[in-house]
């Protein structure tokens, strides 16, 4: 089960500069674990205390996973996972 993961500029230090990488899994959590296995350090930038970090937005295809089960969001072969830095502040 391969999905394409689009990596934002700020996290490309973990992917050797690559804009997108392949990963496997049937849930977002599995995809992130697979990313971590090949690109160490990514998981800590995405997950904090068992849920998605507030500093990132993660989309499966066009859907923000915050509204689709978070880390348990399901992914299937051929899906695109897009990671963007959340733009926010006070």
């Amino acid at each position, binding site marked *: 089960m391969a999905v394409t993961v689009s990596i*934002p*500029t*700020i996290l490309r230090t973990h992917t050797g500069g690559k804009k997108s990488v392949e990963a496997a899994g049937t849930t977002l959590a599995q995809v992130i674990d697979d990313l971590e296995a090949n690109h160490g350090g990514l998981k800590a930038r995405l997950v904090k205390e068992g849920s998605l970090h507030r*500093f990132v*937005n993660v*989309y499966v295809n*066009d859907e*923000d996973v*915050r509204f689709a089960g978070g880390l348990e969001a399901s992914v299937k072969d051929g899906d695109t996972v*897009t990671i*963007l*830095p*959340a*733009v*926010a*502040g*006070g």
Partner: protein
Amino acid sequence: MLVIRRDLVDAMVAHARRDHPDEACGIIAGPEGSDRPERFIAMDNAERSPTFYRFDSAEQLKVWREMDRNDEVPVVVYHSHTATEAYPSRTDVSYASEPDAHYVLVSTKDPEQHELRSYRIVAGVVTEEPVEVVESYMFAHTGSDDTPDCR
């Protein structure tokens, strides 16, 4: 230093005034590597709050994909402060994730006179920079390529 066209400054200030007392936010996209803000994009503040802003995530995905297709980057990321000065808050610093962006703050605290300032925010360190407002980029030094804009 941020070199920016006057019409883009006016657009940010107008957006900030329009959404006052809520915070307004958006970006100005420009060609990758140019350091030249060109395309003004007002974003929805999903929080609709006088003390916090967050880009609407669906709108952000759409705009980021557009920039990707156009080989653009967010040269300016702006938002307003409606009751405090135009200086990044602790929250602003914790979220800042674009080391190459100019973070522009517009304060609408004073109903007559706005305050507009620009910063680099890299690894939690805030550095204010001068803002040069120009009528056109044709005669301005606009960063690494310094190519006159001759369209």
